[in-house]
């Protein structure tokens, strides 16, 4: 049809006009979403599973709930442990009984916080029917494990209310890290009067009762969580920011744009690939700091090839960790030659592998010799399957390590990628040879890392490492009151692990925050905890 049709001139113009009008109608209200001076916004990288402290497990949840509740102890601005809901405490000489004196303070609805609220919380999280996923963290408390697994009645639990202001907690063994453990959300008090009244829904809606610096104002799933300052908080006069908004958005580059536009003040993680750009364009936002976490490769010690410690050592020695941190990751991660991150508790210098001081060439020469002793050579190399869960960084690290093994030892590595649920299901059933894993401290103590290689830790000792001496040292450390001796036992244990290498440590994590310079009072710390009560904004 090639007729020229003038009548459609109108039609054409009309339709274009509609298109333009429709798209133009939106652009009527200009202006930016700059945040108010008393509001702090977080790119929080995840939608919380719950705001009930007994049902959470992620740092993104902890960041919200940590602003709502106050445990017996809490973190200062620099992450150090300070008194929280407990004003003071005493410890019995054998290190087994802690007596806490509570601070005079109330819930956000004005009811006093009593020892009963703590008793109630411990009983609730440890009741088997509560089915809390993180309750095992409290197994330091006397009979907690038995109660949690239904092998003892709730009354057997080592928590006692002396009076409204006094709480007594007995432990299984002297655990000097107990006070540090109490900052964790598993040990927060729960407003028993509200849970009894509202049941499961108590922590979900506006006005949910809490005893911390902020209370819940609004929770729109997948949109935002808003907290507002709790005027009843005991230290409310020193809390400067009125409102906190947590956005659950997980897309890191999308959140970065919101930081650039001033919609988000604090981004709690950013992609390594963005670092170069950030350093050039907004260096004053970057906060990279050592973090209590280790990235490691468990080796399945029941595997035909990997049960030989010489092979494990050769594999560990031929990995160039500096290349991983400086060339592959490039975000300030620290090469790991031991298992416990530096700065953990009072631990001091970890026991590192004894070949750290060797040059790269010497390491490779030794590694080749070890492989030969084990019956392998470059012409007769073993084949290994290296499993990792889906993530750009895990993939990059795995490829680099496979190349290093190939070059140094001739080892053929088959890369095996699966999504996170599948990956951890196969770690659980020990259906792997070499795998990627990582551990972020639950509490600031070396025991929290070293127990990953104890035989009794069935669920997390992925390599099925079972070393008599190691197990004994860890048990001795558990029963030791003297901190120096305790650290010494654990350093000895770590030295064994670093000789046997059931887990190959690769690097220590760093925390990567972007913080708008208008936020003041931010102190980088290895726990990466930054409660808003200590922050101010210009």
């Amino acid at each position, binding site marked *: *049809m090639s007729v020229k049709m003038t009548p*459609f001139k109108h039609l054409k113009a009309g339709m274009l006009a509609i298109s333009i009008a429709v798209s133009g109608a939106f652009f009527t209200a200009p202006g930016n*979403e700059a945040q108010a001076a008393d509001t702090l916004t977080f790119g929080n990288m995840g939608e919380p599973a719950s705001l009930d402290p007994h049902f959470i497990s992620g740092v993104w949840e902890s960041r919200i709930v940590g602003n709502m509740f106050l445990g017996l102890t809490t973190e200062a601005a620099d992450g150090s442990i300070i008194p929280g809901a407990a004003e003071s405490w005493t410890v019995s000489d054998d290190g087994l009984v802690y007596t806490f004196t509570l601070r005079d303070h109330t819930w956000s609805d004005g009811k006093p916080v009593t020892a009963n609220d703590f008793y109630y919380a411990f009983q609730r999280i440890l009741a088997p029917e509560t089915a809390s*996923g993180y309750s095992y963290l409290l197994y330091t408390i006397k009979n907690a494990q038995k109660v949690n697994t239904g092998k003892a009645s709730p009354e057997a639990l080592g928590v006692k209310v002396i009076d409204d202001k006094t709480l007594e907690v007995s432990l299984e063994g002297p655990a000097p890290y107990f006070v540090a453990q109490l900052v964790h959300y598993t040990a927060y008090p729960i407003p028993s009067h509200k849970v009894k009244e509202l049941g499961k829904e108590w922590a979900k809606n506006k006005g949910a009762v809490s005893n911390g610096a902020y209370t819940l104002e609004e929770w*729109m799933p997948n*949109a935002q969580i808003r907290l507002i300052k709790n005027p009843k908080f005991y230290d409310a006069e020193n809390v400067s920011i009125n409102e906190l908004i947590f956005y659950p958005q997980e897309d890191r580059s999308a959140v970065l744009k919101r930081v650039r536009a001033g919609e988000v003040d604090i981004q709690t993680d950013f992609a390594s690939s963005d670092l170069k750009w950030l350093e050039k364009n907004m260096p004053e936002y970057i906060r990279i700091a050592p973090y209590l976490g280790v990235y490691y490769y468990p080796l399945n010690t029941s595997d035909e090839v990997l049960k030989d410690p010489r092979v494990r050592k050769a594999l560990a020695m031929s990995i160039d960790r500096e290349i991983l941190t400086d060339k592959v990751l490039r975000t300030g991660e620290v090469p790991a030659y031991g298992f416990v991150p530096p700065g953990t508790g009072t631990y001091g210098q970890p026991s590192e592998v004894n070949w750290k001081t060797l040059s790269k060439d010497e390491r490779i020469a030794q590694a080749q010799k070890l492989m030969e002793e084990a019956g392998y050579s470059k012409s007769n190399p073993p084949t290994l399957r290296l499993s990792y869960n889906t993530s750009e960084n895990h993939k990059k690290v795995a490829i680099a390590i496979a190349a290093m093994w190939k070059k140094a030892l001739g080892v053929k590595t088959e890369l095996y990628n699966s999504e996170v*649920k599948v990956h951890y299901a196969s770690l659980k059933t020990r259906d792997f040879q070499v795998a990627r894993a990582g551990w972020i401290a639950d509490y600031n103590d070396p025991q929290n890392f070293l127990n990953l290689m104890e035989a009794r830790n069935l669920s997390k000792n992925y390599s099925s490492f079972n070393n008599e001496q190691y197990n004994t040292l860890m048990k001795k450390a558990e029963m030791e009151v003297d901190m120096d001796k305790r650290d010494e036992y654990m350093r000895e244990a770590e030295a064994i692990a670093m000789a046997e290498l059931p887990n190959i440590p690769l690097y220590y994590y760093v925390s990567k925050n972007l913080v708008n310079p208008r936020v003041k009072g931010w102190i980088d710390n290895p726990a990466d905890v930054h409660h808003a009560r200590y922050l101010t904004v210009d």
Partner: protein
Amino acid sequence: MFTYITKRLLAAIPTLLIIITIAFFMMRIAPGGPFDAERQLPPEIEANILKAYDLDKPLYQQYFIYVGNLLRFDFGPSYKFRDFSVTELILTGLPASLQIGGMAILIAALIGVSLGTLAALYQNQKTDYAIMGVAMTGIAIPNFVVAPILSLVFGVYLSWLPVAGWGDGSARNLVLPVISLALPQIAYISRLTRGSMVEVLHSNYIRTARAKGLRERLVVVRHAIKGALLPVVSYLGPAAAAVTTGSVVIESIYDIPGVGRYFVNAALNRDYPLVMGVVIFYATLIIIMNLIVDVIYSFLDPKLRVNG
């Protein structure tokens, strides 16, 4: 007509049941369970949790428990977001998805049909090439490319609109997601319209209309468009269902609290009840949309008119 609709709806019940059954068992075949994670649970705690969700029972029992609950419209709790039930999650996500998706599909239909018609009328001329060129580009560039560019330009550089976020669902927050969702649909619909319009304009009944001496405008508006819309309408049904149930890409880039992200995330989380919930929801919507398409068809095309 009423009997026809009732019949169709009744026929949907077995269809849904089959979908539910297949989805239920397929989900369980996938390796990894809802509580496998970086922080592995001690066996006794996992046992506590599995018991709390009836996951310790044999699979066939779980199936009957699930279907039994469905009959009472109880979709169960979400394993991942434990403060919310599946029904709550879908209902709180739905308004956002409906709002954005509804506007996007409406805009896409209006603009797409207009552009497609224009292109057909000026077949093989500059207007046609221009419109189809743009449409091809629109189809070729995926929205995970378009969306970040839009938010970079209008949010970061020009500061006209929020980069992302829902706010209270105010118009300013809707613009970019709606445009990003609508663009590929506009492209697709205009191509579809052009194709069928070209065909219709060459058909006998249009020739007859012209031969009667009708003005060209009437020929197009009264006769041609009606016929040309048939394939567009049958595309729009499922497309509307897909667009209004949200898009995981758009929702994560613009941080929209819609239903879309559950499709992917629930499956990755092995959140069985939530997966089932969105599957049932989506299947129902598709069935309803197809029914609506068929009803509209019967108005557009007398040959297909059903007697009810």
